[in-house]
């Protein structure tokens, strides 16, 4: 096999399609986290909310068969946990990192406990099917049809959230307020922007997105629930926000890079190329760090990140 041919077996349309699927939960969670961080709130508990969202979506579908109810359940539990997190970090001004870890542990334990008592052993549900967009999904050229037009609806939604959130941040009054609150809460407060209200709002949005991230796993991509289903994805999502420098487009690029390397290493062993599995598993992490070294330079970090707002401080 010459090099070109072996490259051909590795860089396939299905790898690209897998990349989009793998990126979906990261995108939801990381875009949601971007809202919170832009307004100055760090939520390390994303993984816990994802797990709860995944379970509630799964259970709603398992019990009723309705996918819409599943989505609603994930959004609802996500919003509630986001609200709780907002109360803890905005109103009670608790240390955000630790309370996030607490929220993670809570979600990890509670989702499994509910699963054990309400469901028992792993069962599958009928999740969101892939949507074949008529005409477009048949495009053979470069596998475009398979990559872009044969995914399930949550994959499309995740990628749609990127331009929408970018629009909100850059073009709307709400986005302006979010940025103001994150950069200089005292000045924002002086201009009659309610720091508290904005931060509650971003945290609830973040929670709902994390809930969706969980739902995208349990009722769209995997169609099952199991203890610790996310396996730490939420923490990677938080890291991707830093990677993307608090910009939705950057977050998306990070999620795509990370997922691409992951999809590639799976493809490599699927076609029988032998690499020690430890090294291929390690690859996405190594490459993400290297990418960051080269991305380097100035960060756009919200200056008030993790600093609770105290009027007159």
């Amino acid at each position, binding site marked *: 096999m010459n090099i070109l041919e072996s490259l051909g077996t590795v860089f396939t349309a299905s790898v690209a399609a897998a990349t989009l699927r793998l990126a979906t939960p990261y995108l939801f969670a990381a875009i949601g986290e971007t809202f919170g961080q832009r307004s100055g709130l760090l939520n390390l508990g994303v993984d816990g909310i994802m797990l709860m969202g995944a379970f509630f979506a799964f259970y709603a579908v398992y019990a009723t068969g309705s996918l819409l109810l599943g989505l609603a359940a994930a959004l609802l539990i996500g919003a509630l946990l986001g609200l709780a997190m907002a109360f803890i970090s905005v109103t009670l001004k608790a240390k955000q990192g630790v309370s996030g870890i607490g929220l993670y542990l809570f*979600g990890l334990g509670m989702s499994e406990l509910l699963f054990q008592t309400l469901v028992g052993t792993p069962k599958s549900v009928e999740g969101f099917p892939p949507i074949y967009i008529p005409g477009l999904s048949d495009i053979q050229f470069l596998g475009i049809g398979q990559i872009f037009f044969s995914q399930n609806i949550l994959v499309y939604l995740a990628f749609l959230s990127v331009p929408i959130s970018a629009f909100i941040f850059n073009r709307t009054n709400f986005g302006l307020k979010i940025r103001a609150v994150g950069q200089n809460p005292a000045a924002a407060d002086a201009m009659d922007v309610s720091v508290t209200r904005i931060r509650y709002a971003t945290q609830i949005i973040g929670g709902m997105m994390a809930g969706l991230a969980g739902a995208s796993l349990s009722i769209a991509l995997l169609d099952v629930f199991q203890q610790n289903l996310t396996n730490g994805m939420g923490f990677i999502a938080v890291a991707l926000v*830093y990677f993307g420098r608090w910009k939705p487009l950057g977050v998306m690029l990070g999620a795509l890079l990370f997922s691409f390397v992951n999809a590639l290493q799976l493809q490599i062993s699927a076609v029988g190329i032998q690499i020690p599995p430890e090294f291929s598993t390690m690859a996405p992490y190594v490459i*993400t760090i290297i990418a960051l070294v080269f991305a380097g330079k100035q960060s756009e970090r919200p*200056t008030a990140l993790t600093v609770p707002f105290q009027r007159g401080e």
Partner: protein
Amino acid sequence: MNGAFQVRTTPTSWFRTAGNRLLDAAPLLISLALAFLIASGLLLALNVSPIDGFSSMLQGAFGSENTIAETLVKATPMLLVAIGICISFRGGMINVGGEGQMIAGAVAGITVALSLSTTPPIVAVPLSILAGFVAGALYGGLAGWLKAFFNVNEILSTIMLNAIAVQMMNYLLNGPLLDPTEVGVNHVPKTARIAEQLQIARLSIPLPEGVAELFSLQNAELFARTRLHWGLILAIVLAVLAYLLLWRTTIGYRIRAVGENERAAKYAGIRVRWNMVLAMMFAGGFAGLAGVVQVLGLQYRLQTDGSAMGFTANAGFNGIVVALFGGLNPLGAIPASIFFGGLLVGAQKMQRDLGVPAALITSINGMIVIFAVSSEYFRAMIARRRALGGGSMPGTQAVESRPKLPENPPDVIGQATL
């Protein structure tokens, strides 16, 4: 929380300070009680009597000589990690890489210990421990270097470095470091056992005559038949040393100065970048120590189930919580680590005795963390009210819950706010 900023007290004000301390502790105790109340509800929902549940938990944590020892054994690595976290967070570096640094320390330590199996222990043991510290420091320092010179966020890099360390460990334990007796057999990824003379000794305390009988202990020495080892003493001594380092030396002063206000530190002529790397090296070094102490003092070999947790028992993460509970003060981390050790060990006992699912315990632990950090608000409120009400007392007046942050910290997370 803030021993660091405490105004020195005179002996006469000691009682009043103690009274204030008690008042300070009240919100924490109330919030813990609240967390237990919710937990009781959950236990009731599972048809388990909360009284049975918590008494079993308490018994499992502090109920006997052996369980106290297990609590302390659990606390040891968490305390070591927490010491490092105190230093790095004070230096403005959010180190989430304790897991990976523990692994780096353990791998280096066991490699040295295995290759020095015939060397006199007086040389081999310190060398192995040192190797663990250095490896951890280098691994932590790597994240510091990436942050200082390439502006790579340390939260991100340490999360990634954790995953990389796990795979390195898996690779080494499946290949070069694999126990020779495992080759071709069951292939469990573990190293050979270290020579007996290189193991950190078990710790037992000789009791005066009659005391053992008084408490109906089995042995004349306290903790004689338990897994408690000298690693605990090492950790406590190091906690004191780290406290002195942070608040009694220029090295510590510089690290804290960079953490509090990078720009001001720079104007004061402090080498900001170097101190960032240094803070991370300390953090990594102490986590590395935790790793090597687990290996030399408890497990006697490095072994994994393929995940970080399989070796570290999550001490790398729990150490963060312990450090924050201890007010980012190494001395405060000592009781905090014992509290958490007891919580984790006791929870397991509850599962064994009453068949409570492990998941319930995880979620209760999460609630305790949330409630405890949230209680800080009320503690600060009480302190404020006291100050306003004229009842201010010497000793706590200067206490601010956080070191003052500059208006716009250029690129530093207020260390105490995470």
